[in-house]
């Protein structure tokens, strides 16, 4: 029935209740999209009129940034040192982000489960970790450069550090919030001691862990740029700094856009994974 109705004019589709509701939902979604796009469109327009045609503008107009982005990605416009290098830089940054983030997950997740569940581990490690936590990642940069040299390894280390704490703190929080009842239920069913980590602690704290993963990954993208700004040849942070030294502001902004897009995409990926794994949770739809 609805297939037949597909080709009918909108006035006719209103007859069935379902199709009316669907239309309304569609209209609602289109309205939402339009509303969400209105604000950035206004900013772009304002930016355009404030900068286009000006002889001395510190900021290039949006069209010029778009051209720079295209050239950075595919070349064929400026044919300079920056042309067609986007993929190289993206891969370098993504590699460091994923590597540092992955290492942070491997370290923070088990540690968080242990700190949350085992009083002995909590009493031993928690004070130290809490004392180190207020030190900003940026303050670690000079020490990282001394330890790992100027270069990608420092950036890698900073990403690790930046992602580590959000994952750790949220994991500990999640574990501590697990209802005591669930441990009683598990133990009377024959799941006791360390076996509870895999069967109770980890799944029960998964919603909080995912919050930590999203925050950690977001932070990894913040930190990677700082890490790549000194002594690194490739990476989005490096290209932004290099463009700034050459007064290529349009490339600086194009690099910023690329980082924003990558951060957004990686956040969405974690969210999608979370939705799949947390379909059981009424608070996580």
């Amino acid at each position, binding site marked *: 029935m609805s297939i037949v109705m597909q080709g009918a004019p909108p006035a006719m589709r209103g007859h069935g209740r379902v199709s009316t509701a669907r239309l309304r939902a569609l209209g609602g979604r289109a309205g939402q999209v339009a509303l969400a796009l209105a604000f950035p469109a206004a900013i772009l327009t304002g930016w355009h009129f404030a900068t286009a045609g000006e002889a001395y503008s510190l900021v290039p107009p949006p069209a010029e940034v778009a051209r720079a982005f295209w050239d950075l990605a595919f070349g064929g416009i400026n044919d300079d040192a920056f042309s067609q290098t986007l993929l190289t830089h993206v891969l370098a940054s993504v590699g460091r982000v994923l590597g540092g983030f992955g290492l942070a997950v491997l370290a923070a997740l088990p540690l968080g489960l242990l700190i949350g569940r085992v009083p002995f581990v909590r009493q031993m490690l928690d004070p130290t970790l809490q004392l180190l936590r207020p030190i900003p990642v940026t303050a670690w940069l000079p020490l990282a450069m001394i330890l790992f040299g100027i270069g990608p390894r420092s950036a890698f280390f900073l990403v690790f550090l930046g992602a580590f704490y959000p994952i750790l703190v949220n994991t500990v929080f999640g574990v501590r919030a697990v*209802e005591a*009842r*669930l441990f*009683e*239920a*598990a*133990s*009377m*069913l*024959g*799941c*006791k001691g360390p*076996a509870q980590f895999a*069967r*109770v602690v980890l*799944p*029960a704290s*998964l919603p909080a862990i995912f919050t930590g993963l999203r925050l950690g990954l977001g932070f990894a993208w913040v930190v990677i740029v700082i890490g790549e700004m000194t002594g690194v040849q490739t990476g989005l942070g490096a290209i932004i700094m290099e463009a700034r030294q050459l007064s290529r502001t349009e490339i600086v902004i194009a690099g910023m856009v690329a980082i924003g897009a990558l951060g957004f995409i990686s956040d969405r990926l974690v969210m999608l994974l979370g939705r799949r794994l947390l*379909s*059981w*949770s*009424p608070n996580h739809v």
Partner: protein
Amino acid sequence: MSEPTIPILEMRNVSKTFDFSGQRIQALSGASLTVRKGEFICLIGASGCGKSTLLRIAAGFEQPTSGEALMWGKPIDGPDPSRGMVFQDYGLFPWLTVRGNIGFGLAARGRPKAEIQDTVSRYVDMVGLGKFADAWPHQLSGGMKQRVAIARVLANDAEVVLMDEPFGALDAMTRDRLQDELLELWASTGLTVLFVTHSIEEAVFLSDRVVAMSPGPGRIDSELQLDLPRPRDVASPTFNAIRGDLNQRLHSHHARRAA
């Protein structure tokens, strides 16, 4: 009174004292109780009479401060699948479906997959949740959740089912239905049930023996053997006479305390 066989559960002069930041509170004082295999026993009393503490000691969640808690004559030293617990607040694992919850114990104990599947399907059907086998706990009503909680301890080979006010959070109609279903399960499986409640009617409707407890400090006051045939009619004169008797036992205690 002599017992030819060892009782499935035995509490010998059990006392329990809790420490609340330096303050010692006696929850249970010298409670003795013998449970024979296949019995349905209700523990009844006002809040603070130690009935839940006694149940938790039987489960192995708490150790007695003095006295002995035994199963088949051996000291109870921790929770065990042979004594399944059904909580008032269900205690289901929200990340597992109905099937997953019922199979939790078997999976945790490393049983083969095929066996788990068979057993789980059998118990899903037994508690009438076939249509909801793949639903998450948050999608179930309270009555359904409690059916899952009962099924998961039965599927896990429980010999004794310990129930802590299991129907206390349910509406009256659901409670009546679950009481009937529980009696059916009990009659068909030969289970032993130790059931905590504060409803006199529930106790008289369900049990072979009612154990009346009183607070301050918690102790066992008296036991009442019920030889009424089942199914029991809550409107019958005999039922009401027993209810009145129990009511008086529990309330005369209040009068004594007030005096």
